[in-house]
């Protein structure tokens, strides 16, 4: 044992003489992290990404993204002798003929679902506790970008397999691209290498899925974590915790052990799911034929809000001067663009509407910011209803009702549920605040919200009034 110890020390000294690593490592191991269960959600996203990388690299050894037509000769009996693309055939090979291939494929898919889910919940944690305020606006922007890239990468991933379901998804993606005014037809042609299905799309998606987007995600993830180190983690208020300090435990040894444990447990849950819970059984869907479609074509959960929006949006489209803005543009392009634009802008909008541009390191309790919390809850409710709308056909079949009736119900719910959730949340926040006051806690300072900024028509007059005193 003692000799072993000596060797590690000698290696450490050798490295230190070349890198000066001892000082660095000491700072790193001494970093203080506040402890709260909600801070683990982002870690889970990180570890799901690690699992994605490991399983994904394994899958690339066997997957062949070619649309060349082959006749299947593998061991899955029902499809033997069927003509299909090489991509789909190699997905079948991974599932049936590569030992441990199926479990890796399923872990990969489950990890993608968990990765996106953890990211969204992490986003909600940051939003509802105000962790995006100065000085963390840039990290918020990086985080939103990571979410967008990951959604695209998830879609690209399950579209590679060239089965009937993913082909239908690609066709919808093609049509959405086509719907963009002015440049849509060009964009669609550039993306697919021609008209749908296009000769190049699977190959291009493969490069995008395994190289382009993962590289971007890794770079941004590094920046995301680097900024957490730079800013030091936020913390909830409590005894001894102020805006000027951070109270928690150092990385070494307890936090590091716990975090490694969390990584292993995340991977364990994903492994169990990958082994026991079937996901995306492409062999049941069959190879993609453009003229076919199957009922109950639902996307992965993080695309469901878009699919739902496509369903509930009324049959409207804009036509003028012989040009058309087709129907899918509004629910798919405009809604998605607006959603992410609003997310990007939120820290700046909130700072403007509350005149609060100070640094904040202490987190808000959601109840103490009732307006933000209720707006956030209403937004979450809206996208939840949209996501559920993606299942109108399944709901109608399951309960034996009319699809039309279910769809109309979801259209109404899209308009009614968010305001109800928002107002209920507002009321709930107020009641919780009153309870806090009754328990003898001083109410925290609350910024005044400048609602008058919503009166857009007064902006001009206000700017003039502001400019006037400086005039001679």
């Amino acid at each position, binding site marked *: 044992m003692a000799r072993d110890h000596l060797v590690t020390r000698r290696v450490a000294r050798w490295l230190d003489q070349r890198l000066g690593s001892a000082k660095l490592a000491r700072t790193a191991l001494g970093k203080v992290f506040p402890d709260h269960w909600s801070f683990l959600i982002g870690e889970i996203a990180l570890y799901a990404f690690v699992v994605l990388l490991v399983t994904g690299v394994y899958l690339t050894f066997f997957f062949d993204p070619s649309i060349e037509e082959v006749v299947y000769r593998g061991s899955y009996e029902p499809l033997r002798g069927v003509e299909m693309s090489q991509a789909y055939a190699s997905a079948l090979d991974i599932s049936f003929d590569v030992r441990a291939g199926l479990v890796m494929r399923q872990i990969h898919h489950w990890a993608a679902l968990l990765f996106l889910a953890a990211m969204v919940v992490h986003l909600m944690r940051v939003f509802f506790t105000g962790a995006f305020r100065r000085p963390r606006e840039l990290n918020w922007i990086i985080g939103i970008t990571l979410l967008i890239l990951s959604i695209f990468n998830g879609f690209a991933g399950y579209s590679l397999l060239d089965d009937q379901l993913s082909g239908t998804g690609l066709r919808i993606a093609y049509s959405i691209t086509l*719907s963009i005014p002015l440049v849509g037809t060009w964009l669609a042609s550039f993306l697919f290498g021609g008209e749908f299905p296009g000769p190049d799309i699977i190959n291009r998606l493969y490069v995008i899925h395994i190289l382009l987007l993962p590289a971007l995600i890794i770079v941004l993830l590094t920046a995301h974590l680097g900024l957490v180190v730079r800013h030091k983690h936020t913390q909830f208020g409590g005894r001894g915790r102020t805006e000027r300090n*951070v*109270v928690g435990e150092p990385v070494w040894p307890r936090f590091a*052990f716990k975090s490694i444990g*969390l990584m292993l447990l995340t991977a364990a849950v994903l492994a*169990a799911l990958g082994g026991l819970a079937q996901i995306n059984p492409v062999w049941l869907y069959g190879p993609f034929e453009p003229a076919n479609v199957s009922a109950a074509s639902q996307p992965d959960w993080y695309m469901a809000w878009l699919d739902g929006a496509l369903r509930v949006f009324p049959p409207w489209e804009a036509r003028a001067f012989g040009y058309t803005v087709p*129907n899918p543009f509004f629910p798919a392009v405009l809604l998605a663009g607006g959603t992410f634009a609003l997310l990007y802008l939120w820290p700046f909008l909130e700072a403007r509407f509350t005149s609060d541009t100070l640094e904040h390191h202490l987190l808000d309790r959601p109840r103490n910011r009732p307006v933000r919390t209720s707006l956030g809850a209403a937004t979450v409710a809206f996208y939840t209803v949209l996501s559920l709308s993606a299942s109108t056909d399944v709901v109608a079949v399951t309960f034996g009702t009319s699809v039309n009736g279910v769809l109309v119900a979801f259209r109404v719910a899209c308009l009614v549920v968010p305001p109800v959730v928002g107002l209920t949340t507002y009321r709930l926040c107020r009641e919780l605040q009153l309870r806090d006051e009754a328990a003898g806690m001083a109410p925290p300072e609350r910024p005044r919200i400048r609602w008058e900024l919503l009166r857009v028509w007064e902006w001009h007059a206000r700017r003039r009034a502001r400019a006037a005193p400086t005039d001679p």
Partner: protein
Amino acid sequence: MTGSDADDPEAPRGCLGCSGDGPPPPATGPADGPGADPHAARRAEVAVATGFLASTAGAIGLAVVYWRGGQPQLEGLFLALALGGLGLGFVLWSRRFMPHQPVVEARHPIASTEEEIDRFRDEFEQGEVILTRRKLLVRTAGLAVGALGAALLFPLRSLGPRPGKGLKETPYGRGVYLVTADNQRVRAEDVNRDGVLTVFPEVAADPEEAEEPPRPEHQADSSTLLIRPSGTPRPQRGRDGWTVDGLVAYSKLCTHVGCPVGLYQADTHLLLCPCHQSTFDVLDGARPVFGPATRPLPQLPIGLDAEGYVVAEGDFAAPPGPGFWDRDR
């Protein structure tokens, strides 16, 4: 799992929101620290070691399963056991045997001080002066960089062909035979009452590459539904003689986002798209009656040739499939 141990259980819960006075909560000692219960420490040690042993067993199980031919459920289970036992061991180890000592670290202002900003500006502007003195060089360098950037955009054009008439036209035309996916020509009596048949324009077999017969269904935008509805189709203006022998033909591509309109409800004469539930009335020019689609399915004029095979009498009445910017131009 690891949530509550950061907060001192004696601290008032509501204090989460207020900025704090007073010292942080005191440390809690590890299980094998001075004054700890030796039995509890022993039990904790056994628990952690059990986790690691379970993990070892899982890893061995995984190797054996793989060696003996593999089995997805067992592979997942043993991998989960190997990872989970190790993870649980680490978490328990840290919680029971490592000191939990809250540490206070001071935060320093993120922004630089005024002097630092001034010094940086002075040093940077030394370079700036050099730049601004040679205006010609700066401008020509800017021009060169801009031109290079613009020139590098041109290779993007290789990504795809110009979106031309292909979006608006299909191989259909006067006299083009309708064929099934197996490349068989269709007679009017091949479609029963209330029946539906998916057909395509016949692709002329290329004598140069005679080995592989062309596969009609690869023409993604020209799949067509040949339907014999049981009712009488309402006459559509300007479309006299577009049907033959009780048969009508409509594009199979939904005008919403282009999914194949795969479901025909014969009793109501409705075509339903399984993707987003757009519904089209076959007896009324395939007009959309429900769902997000805004335009009817384009109709294909059909007739019979001398031998009784169904042929197209022209192209679709409108570009098939989803809408796009210059669709009507």
